[in-house]
């Protein structure tokens, strides 16, 4: 039997499909799929549906803060209207000319994109005006925005914990079981190994060998990246070839001494193997083929970056990595499974992607073809940067670039200004305001909270590990004391 949520998901998917089909039959050519893409993807994917639930949970939990934020904007509009009514400023510099203009400018001010530019004309008249802007930034940017992040963190953490203990439990436990199974298989494989293979594995796993390998990786990266003078491409290519052969030794030892099913389960080893094979093949090809594809090989140096970063990260975060897999018998209330950061961050980025996909669909439908190369002169006349023609909604890819620029909120008011100039109506701002509300203040906040949650969880696990070890030590010393007392008696 289907659950209610599954049924709703099915109904939304079928309705979306019927709408696309109907529109396609009646008025051929309207890309309705652009707008319905996100709902269909959400209804057909369990992960996306779960993350959209998180999104709405965060949205609902923060609803009163969003109301507070808008109330604050309206209050500052009223206060500004009283305070700045006596200032005689040119129309282009005075943002206190209409309610909508003030609300828009205050919303942009909250994101700090137009500060201090927006207040400069008033400051020129009276320096005390800065207090008004400082008060607004203090209330909305420093307090309300950060409260929204903190509240989102609580909602996200609660949801994740509940999910992991209920629906997500089989998945989480399955992951743990598979990891343990892998470890057992690895131990078995090592047991069955010949003495020579075991010796080779010991060599490549030794600290000295690993350190040498790390240094060689750095040498390879810098030699290829910086093209030292005196070395012509063939020389660099030869160095790259020799170093790759040297570095491939450990990879090949690890690959050939382990069963294939275990090698496949080690992503970094697979990546290493891929880099080695690709570099060797490309080097040989370029050397044999008279340097026509010379431009390719420097890119292979970039593939060495993970090799250089991995040991550094392992050293810097060794405590966190140890606490990732720590099973603490003493502390109650925490589920003792391996903490997985990557799937979480992927899931929150998917949420962001889905929200952007929805806005991109609407954006393409509304503003496709609005900005072209010919718009440069119009923008220049309006006093805007003509290069903003590259930020447009002419295709899905372009719309994603535009939305990403809006997400970062730097100079987003200038992007919106170019759209307002070209459409000729200030109502255009409504779309961008909605994206700021639902994209920046909710979806982007979830990404931030996920990162905060990961750091806090790791710190908690580390604390639990130390606490657990102390408990073990205490019980151990208590047992020894007991034994000693017995022996003395």
């Amino acid at each position, binding site marked *: 039997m289907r659950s209610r949520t599954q049924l709703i998901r099915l109904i939304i998917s079928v309705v979306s499909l019927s709408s696309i089909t109907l529109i*396609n039959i009646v008025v051929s050519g309207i*890309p309705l*799929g652009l707008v319905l893409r996100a709902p*269909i993807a959400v209804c057909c994917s369990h992960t996306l549906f779960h993350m959209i639930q998180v999104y709405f949970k965060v949205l609902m939990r923060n609803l009163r803060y969003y109301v507070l934020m808008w109330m604050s904007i309206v209050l500052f509009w009223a206060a500004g209207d009283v305070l700045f009514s006596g200032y005689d400023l040119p129309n282009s510099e005075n943002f206190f000319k209409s309610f909508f203009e003030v609300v828009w400018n205050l919303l942009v001010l909250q994101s700090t994109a137009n500060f201090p530019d927006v207040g400069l004309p008033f400051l020129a008249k009276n320096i005390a005006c800065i207090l008004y802007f400082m008060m607004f930034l203090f209330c909305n940017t420093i307090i309300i925005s950060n409260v929204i992040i903190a509240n989102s963190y609580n909602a996200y953490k609660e949801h994740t914990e509940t999910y992991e203990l209920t629906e997500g439990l089989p998945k989480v436990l399955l992951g743990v079981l598979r990891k343990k199974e892998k470890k057992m298989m690895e131990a078995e494989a090592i047991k069955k190994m010949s003495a020579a293979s075991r010796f080779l594995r010991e060599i490549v796993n030794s600290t000295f060998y690993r350190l040498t390998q790390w240094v060689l990786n750095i040498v390879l990266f810098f030699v290829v990246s910086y093209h030292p003078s005196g070395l012509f491409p063939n020389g660099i290519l030869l160095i790259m070839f020799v170093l790759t052969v040297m570095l491939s030794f450990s990879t090949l030892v690890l690959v050939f001494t382990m069963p294939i099913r275990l090698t496949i389960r080690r992503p970094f080893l697979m990546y290493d193997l891929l880099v080695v094979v690709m570099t060797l093949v490309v080097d040989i090809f370029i050397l044999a083929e008279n340097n026509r594809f010379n431009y390719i090989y420097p890119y292979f140096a970039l593939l060495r970056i993970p090799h250089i970063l991995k040991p550094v990260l392992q050293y810097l975060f060794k405590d966190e990595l140890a606490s990732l897999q720590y099973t603490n*018998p003493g502390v109650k209330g925490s589920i003792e499974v391996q903490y997985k950061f990557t799937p979480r961050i992927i899931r929150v980025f998917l949420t962001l992607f889905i929200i952007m996909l929805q806005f991109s669909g609407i954006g393409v439908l509304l503003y496709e073809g609005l900005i072209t190369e010919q718009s440069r002169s119009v923008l220049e006349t309006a006093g805007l940067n003509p290069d903003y023609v590259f930020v447009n909604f002419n295709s899905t890819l372009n719309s994603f670039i535009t939305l990403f620029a809006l997400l970062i909120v730097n100079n987003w008011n200038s992007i919106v200004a170019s759209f307002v100039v070209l459409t000729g109506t200030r109502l255009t701002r409504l779309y961008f305001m909605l994206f700021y509300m639902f994209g920046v203040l909710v979806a982007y906040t979830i990404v931030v909270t996920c990162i905060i949650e990961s750091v806090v969880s790791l710190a908690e696990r580390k604390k639990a590990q130390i606490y657990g070890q102390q408990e073990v030590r205490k019980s151990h010393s208590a047992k020894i004391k007991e034994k000693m007392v017995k022996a003395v008696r």
Partner: protein
Amino acid sequence: MTFGRHVLTISQQSNGNNMEEERLTVSSTSFLEETAEKQQPVRTRWLSRLLLVAFVLLPIFRKLPGGDLRNCTAFIAELPNTVYCWIEVVLVALIILLRHYV
């Protein structure tokens, strides 16, 4: 497999609830079997995932700004609007079928 029991026992400690204990204290073998039964066949799952990704990314490849990738995906860009829309319809129908009925 004894390792499954280990994880589940710890979960039981963290809950401290008798009902939870009964539910969670299952052997890892039966747990894995039950989970495998509930899951979609791997091939179908991956096929529906692939179709979903194709459906989401299709409009990006339909109108690329330019360059080598544009040449590779020219066949999508050159499709008439009606054909493109019908491809979308078929893709969605397939995804719904695979996700909800298979």
